[in-house]
C-alpha cells in the first residue's frame, strides 16, 4: 500500500508542480501545495469528464500537460516571470528548520493513517464518486440523475473522489475494492497533511516586516521578500532574528497540532471536512493576512481551488475568500488598471468555483437529500436546535474574539508595520461559513436533531480553525513587539533605539518613501542578511 500511495502522490505532484512553482514561487510551501494543485487538476478533469466525454485519466493527463506547457511557454515568452533564482533566504536553515518542525507535527498528527479507517461518509460519498469518473462520461452522466444513487449525493463536488480515482488508475486497482477505499483514505489524509503544512508555512511568514515594503516595490524584490526567508528580516538583529524564527516555528507547529487535533479522527478517515477547511485556512492567511504579493496570492488561489472543489460549504466559503481577496487587492494596489485586474480575476475565480454546481444543475443531478423533500419540523424549531448544537462546539471563538479585540486596540500599529492585513476579513469569512452551514440546517429538510447529531461537530471545524489562526497571528504580532531590535511604535512617543536601523526602517510608511530610499531597487539600504 505504501508504494501505491507514493505513486499516487508523485503523480498528483507532477501534475501540479509547474503551475504551483509558476504562481507560488520557488519556496518550501510550494512543495506542500504541489500535490494539492494536482488534486485540483484531477477535480477539474472530473468536471470535464462529466461535461463532455472521455474519462478521468484522459482528462487528467490532458489538463496536466496543458498546464505544464502553458507555464513553460509563459516562462519562455516572459523571462521576467521565471521564479528562479529562488527568493533570498527562502531555503535558509531557519526557514527549512521551521518547515521541518511543522512537517514533524503534521506527520505525528496523521498517525491515524497507519490503520484502515474508512469512515462511513468516505465510502458512501467522497471516495466512491471517483469510480464514476474512472469509468468515464457515460457512467458519470448516468449516475447524476439515477435515483438509486441518491445515497451518494451525486451533486457533491468531485475533488476527493477524483484524486482517489487517479490513484486507482495509476496503481491498476479495481474501483470499489477494499484496497481502493484504503488508498482513498490515505490519499485524502496526505492532502490534509499538505494543507496543514501550507497553513503552518503561512504562519512562518508572519514576522516579516520587509516583506511589506519590498512587496510594494514590485518585481524580483517583491517575489524575493515575499518568500519570508531569513534574509528578509534585516530590520531585526541576528540573535533576535533567530528568536523570531524559532518562535514562529513553535507557534506554527502548535497551530498545526491544535488544528489537526480539532479535526480529530476526521483528519484520517477520508471525510471531506478537514481537507477543505485546511485549504481554505491557508488561503485566508496567504490571501487576506500576508502582504499582497503575486506569490502569496498564488498560494491563496491554490487553496481556494482546492477548498472550492471538495464540499459545497467549501465552495461557498471559497467564494467569499475570492471576493475579499479581490477587494483587498483592489484597495491596496492603487492604480485603476489593477482594480480592473482584481475585478476580472475575482469574477474568473467565482465562475470557476461555480462550474461544478452549474454543471450538475444543468444535468438535472439529483438534489441533495438533506435539503429537498418535505421539511421536518418548523423553521423556528430547527433554528433553535441548530444554534444550540453549533454553539456547543464554538467555545474557542469568543476567546479568539477577545484576543482579536485586544490585539486591534493594542497591536494595530505593529500589525500594519508587519504588513499584515486586518483580521476583520477573517471574521467575515468565518461568519459567512457559519451562515451557510446554519442556513443549510435551518432551511434543510432532514430530521434536524439526527442531522446535527451526526455532523455538527465537524461542520464547525472551519470556524474553530479560523479562531486558532487568529490567535496564532496575534501571538506572532505580540511576540515581535517584545523582541529587542524588532519593530516598535505602538506606544505614543516611543523612539527607536539609537543605531537600530530596524526600528527606523520599520517606521517607514508602506509603499511610501522606502523604494525611493532604496534607490528603487530591492532593499539597497537593507540588504538580505
Amino acid at each position, binding site marked *: 500500500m505504501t508504494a501505491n500511495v507514493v505513486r499516487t502522490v508523485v503523480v498528483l505532484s507532477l501534475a501540479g508542480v509547474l503551475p504551483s512553482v509558476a504562481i507560488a514561487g520557488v519556496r518550501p510551501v510550494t512543495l506542500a501545495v504541489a500535490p494539492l494543485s494536482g488534486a485540483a487538476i484531477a477535480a477539474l478533469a472530473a468536471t470535464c469528464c462529466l461535461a463532455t466525454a472521455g474519462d478521468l485519466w484522459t482528462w487528467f493527463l490532458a489538463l496536466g500537460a496543458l498546464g505544464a506547457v502553458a507555464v513553460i511557454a509563459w516562462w519562455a515568452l516572459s523571462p521576467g516571470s521565471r521564479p528562479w533564482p529562488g527568493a533570498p533566504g527562502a531555503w535558509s536553515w531557519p526557514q527549512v528548520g521551521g518547515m521541518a518542525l511543522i512537517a514533524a507535527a503534521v506527520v505525528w498528527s496523521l498517525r*491515524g493513517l497507519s*490503520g*484502515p*479507517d*474508512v*469512515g*462511513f461518509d468516505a*465510502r*458512501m460519498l467522497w*471516495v*466512491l464518486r*471517483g*469510480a464514476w469518473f474512472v469509468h468515464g462520461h457515460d457512467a458519470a452522466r448516468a449516475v447524476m440523475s*439515477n*435515483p*438509486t*444513487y441518491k*445515497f*451518494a449525493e451525486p451533486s457533491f463536488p468531485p475533488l476527493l473522489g477524483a484524486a482517489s480515482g487517479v490513484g486507482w488508475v495509476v496503481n491498476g486497482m*479495481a*474501483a*470499489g*475494492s*477494499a484496497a*481502493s*477505499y484504503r488508498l482513498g483514505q490515505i490519499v485524502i489524509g496526505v492532502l490534509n497533511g499538505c494543507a496543514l503544512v501550507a497553513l503552518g508555512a503561512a504562519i512562518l511568514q508572519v514576522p516579516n516586516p520587509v516583506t511589506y515594503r519590498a512587496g510594494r516595490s514590485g518585481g524580483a524584490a517583491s517575489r524575493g521578500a515575499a518568500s519570508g526567508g531569513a534574509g528578509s528580516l534585516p530590520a531585526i538583529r541576528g540573535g533576535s532574528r533567530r528568536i523570531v524564527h524559532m518562535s514562529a516555528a*513553535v*507557534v506554527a507547529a*502548535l*497551530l498545526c*497540532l*491544535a488544528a*489537526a*487535533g*480539532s479535526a*480529530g*479522527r476526521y483528519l484520517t*478517515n477520508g471525510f471531506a471536512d478537514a481537507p477543505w477547511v485546511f485549504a481554505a485556512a491557508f488561503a485566508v492567511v496567504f490571501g487576506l493576512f500576508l502582504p499582497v504579493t503575486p506569490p502569496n496570492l498564488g498560494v491563496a488561489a491554490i487553496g481556494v481551488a482546492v477548498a472550492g472543489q471538495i464540499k459545497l460549504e467549501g465552495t461557498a466559503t471559497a467564494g467569499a475568500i475570492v471576493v475579499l481577496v479581490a477587494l483587498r487587492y483592489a484597495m491596496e494596489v492603487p492604480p485603476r488598471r489593477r482594480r480592473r485586474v482584481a475585478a476580472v480575476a475575482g469574477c474568473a475565480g467565482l465562475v470557476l468555483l461555480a462550474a461544478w454546481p452549474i454543471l450538475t444543475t444543468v444535468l438535472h443531478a439529483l438534489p441533495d437529500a438533506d435539503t429537498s423533500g418535505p421539511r421536518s419540523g418548523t423553521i423556528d424549531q430547527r433554528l433553535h436546535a441548530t444554534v444550540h448544537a453549533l454553539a456547543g462546539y464554538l467555545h*474557542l471563538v469568543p*476567546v*479568539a474574539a477577545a*484576543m482579536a479585540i*485586544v*490585539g486591534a486596540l*493594542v*497591536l494595530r500599529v505593529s500589525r500594519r508595520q508587519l504588513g499584515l492585513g486586518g483580521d476583520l476579513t477573517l471574521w467575515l469569512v468565518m461568519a459567512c461559513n457559519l451562515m451557510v452551514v446554519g442556513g443549510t440546517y435551518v432551511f434543510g429538510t432532514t430530521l434536524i436533531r439526527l442531522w446535527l447529531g451526526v455532523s455538527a461537530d465537524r461542520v464547525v471545524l472551519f470556524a474553530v480553525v479560523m479562531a*486558532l489562526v487568529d*490567535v*496564532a497571528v*496575534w*501571538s506572532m504580532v*505580540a*511576540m515581535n513587539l*517584545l523582541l529587542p531590535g524588532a519593530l516598535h511604535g505602538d506606544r505614543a512617543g516611543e523612539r527607536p533605539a539609537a543605531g537600530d536601523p530596524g526600528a527606523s526602517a520599520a517606521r517607514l510608511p508602506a509603499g511610501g518613501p522606502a523604494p525611493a530610499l532604496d534607490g528603487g531597487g530591492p532593499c539597497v539600504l537593507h540588504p538580505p542578511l
Partner: protein
Amino acid sequence: MVVSGLVVLGTVALHANSAPTLATQALARTADQANERFFDCLSDQARRLVSPSEPIHIRADGLEQIVYLEGSVGAWASLIPGAEPARATLVMAAGGGPGSCSGYVLSVERTGRL
C-alpha cells in the same frame, strides 16, 4: 498576549491528544472498522453473483440494509432505477452459514427476460 496565545494553542493541542479524547476516537474507529469489514464482505459476495457490467436492482428488508448494500456495490455495480427493467436483482436477507456477512447473505434473482 503572547502567553495567552500560546496557552490557547497548547491547550487545544493537548486536549485534542488527551487520553479521553483519543479513547473516544478509538471507539468510533473500531465501529467504523467493523462497518468496513461488513461492507467489504458484502462487496466480495456480490462480485461472485453479478458482474460489473450487468444492470441490476437491489432489494433488502429495511432502509439500513439497503444503505449497506448500496455502499458495498455502488462503486462497481451497474445499479439502475427501479422503474427500469433488470435481468437480475441482488437480494440481501438475514441468514447464516458459509459466505454470510455478520448474519446476512446475498443472493441473486434472475428474471430470464426483460
